[in-house]
């Protein structure tokens, strides 16, 4: 394991600027998640670190060594792909042993066998080692894909949305397992995802990336509580933060154009609030309900206690409770 340092890296594909001036340091044993929508440049960042793409400018250092021009094989990184990560013509065992059998490693066969079995046990796939890779379920395939990376002890594990092709239940299970394994091994991981839950639950730091730029990086709590702009604020939180014109509310600070209100910033009552809204729809989720409101023609979504008994057509009053303020360009304004 080692520290990975990315310095002012830019990359364009033709006229598309995939990544602009990305600087990021991933500390030894740290779990950093890059969170962003499709096309934000997350995967490009991983591919640059792996050496599958060459940056147009900037440098990449692994463990203090400049690897910017090195071939992928010389960088000592492991990559977990979103899909297609298993070789269909090989068994599970051979898939996992593939990296250890690389001509550059010359690992003795007995060591390979021991290592693969150890990792297989860790991932609960030790009974599947003789299966063809194509005879596995989606969850098992993804475990093998992670196992392919874990048999090595690389400087850094690069993971490109490894759980996104799985169903919600499996994703939840593997999320926990992956975090446990990372802690056990003290592994350095750069994890790319568009799923805020994965980023929030596993990462020690989250980097929010948008349009090829790293917007903000910090602990999940920092990113959630102190987003630097409306983009970042909209990335985290379920339901998504409500961005409302400041003009609707009295008493917003000077220069504030938009008010960002998450569920915890909104107090709903039957009357007596700052502003009134109409309930359009209630989604019952069991332990809580999503309340869809109409506030002066703007949709507002918030959580409500199912016991509160709101129904479509009810008029409710809202009170803001220390919301987030943004200026005309979407940047955060101190309250």
């Amino acid at each position: 394991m080692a520290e990975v340092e990315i310095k002012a890296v830019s990359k364009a594909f033709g006229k598309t600027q995939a990544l602009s001036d990305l600087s990021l340091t991933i500390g030894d044993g740290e779990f950093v998640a890059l969170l962003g929508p499709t096309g934000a440049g997350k995967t490009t960042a991983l591919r640059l670190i792996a050496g599958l793409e060459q940056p147009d400018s900037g440098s990449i250092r692994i463990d203090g060594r400049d690897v910017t021009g090195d071939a992928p094989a010389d960088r000592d990184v492991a990559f977990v792909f979103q899909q297609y990560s298993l070789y269909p013509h090989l068994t599970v065992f051979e898939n996992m042993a593939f990296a250890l059998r690389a001509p550059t490693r010359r690992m003795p066969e007995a060591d390979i066998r021991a290592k693969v079995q150890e990792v297989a046990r860790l991932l609960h796939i030790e009974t599947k080692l003789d299966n063809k890779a194509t005879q596995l379920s989606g969850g098992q395939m993804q475990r093998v894909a992670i196992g392919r990376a874990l048999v090595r002890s690389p400087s850094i594990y690069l993971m490109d949305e490894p759980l996104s092709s799985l169903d919600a239940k499996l994703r939840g299970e593997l999320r926990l397992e992956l975090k446990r394994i990372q802690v056990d091994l003290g592994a350095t991981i750069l994890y790319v995802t568009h799923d805020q839950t994965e980023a929030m639950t596993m990462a020690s730091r989250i980097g929010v990336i948008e349009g090829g730029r790293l917007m903000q990086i910090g602990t999940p709590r920092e990113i959630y509580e102190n987003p630097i702009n409306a983009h970042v604020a909209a990335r985290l939180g379920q339901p998504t933060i409500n961005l409302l014109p400041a003009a609707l509310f009295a008493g917003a600070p000077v220069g504030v154009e938009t008010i960002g209100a998450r569920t915890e910033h909104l107090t709903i009552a039957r009357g007596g609030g700052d502003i009134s809204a109409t309930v359009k729809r209630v989604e019952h989720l069991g332990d809580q309900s999503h309340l869809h409101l109409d506030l002066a023609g703007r949709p507002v979504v918030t959580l409500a206690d199912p016991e509160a008994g709101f129904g479509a057509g009810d008029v409710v009053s809202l009170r803001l409770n220390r919301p987030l303020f943004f200026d005309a360009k979407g940047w955060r304004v101190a309250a």
Partner: protein
Amino acid sequence: MTSATTAHSVVEPSTTTRRFAGTLVVLYAIITMIPLVWIMLTAFKSPDDAISYPPKVMFKPSLEGFCNLFTTRSRQTPEFIRSLGPPQGLCDDIARSRNMVVAGPSNYVPRFVNSLIIAFGSTVLAVALGTLSAYGFSRFRVPLKDDLLFFILSTRMMPPIAVAIPIYLMYRTIGLSDTRLGMILLYTSVNVSLAVWLLKGFIDEIPREYEEAAMIDGYTRFQAFVKVVLPQATTGIAATAIFCLIFAWNEYAFAVLLTSGNAQTAPPFIPIIIGEGGQDWPAVAAGTTLFLVPIVVFTVLLRKHLLRGITFGAVRK
């Protein structure tokens, strides 16, 4: 109503439809096979049975055709033949009954060996070169890629025989006429365009993540190509190899023009077996029958790949 009927026929063809389709396929197979069966029957007929009219379907099988294919014979007087010792094997026996003696082996075996060497040699070369170039075209940013691919394809747009005279003159000048190497190079250059195009399609279908994973795991690009791409491209390689082999094996025009005593292949040789003093159809038929064997064996060995190969891309996952 209409949509329900359509949906039904798409899901599961009815028994009648299936029987009709089956009959059609069997009928087509029979029509295609009749000439082949006739050739094989003729190979085992005596020369008289072969040209009898009306044609004989039932006849006494004879190996005379194969004997005449593999030997050359000389005509002798009955007195001379009687003065000889006992016949040396079956073919000598048959020859003596026709007032001939076996003079020596024919050229069929060396011609057949030439065919094997030239056809398989050019197939291996064309497929190897085709795989490498297809991989290059598929994976790298090649300048003028589309123009190059079109240029490669365009070599197929004219009949190869159109360039026969220039090639003949060229080969004579550089000493490649009537050599196996010359024929291998010629068939390779004709086949390589087909190979590049077919294989590029197959390699395009193999996700590049496989090689990238291998390269990150410590393999060079070439090692990744061998370990990861080739095993997954076997279907395409097999299908391409069959097409290349069939072309090189059957090619007649260039073989007639460019080969004679040394590197002649079987196709130009078979018609000239026809012989002196009567047309020896059983020998020609025997030569043709044996000529079919390698292609049949090769195709049967690779048939699983071939079926998937020619329908490749038609069915999407």
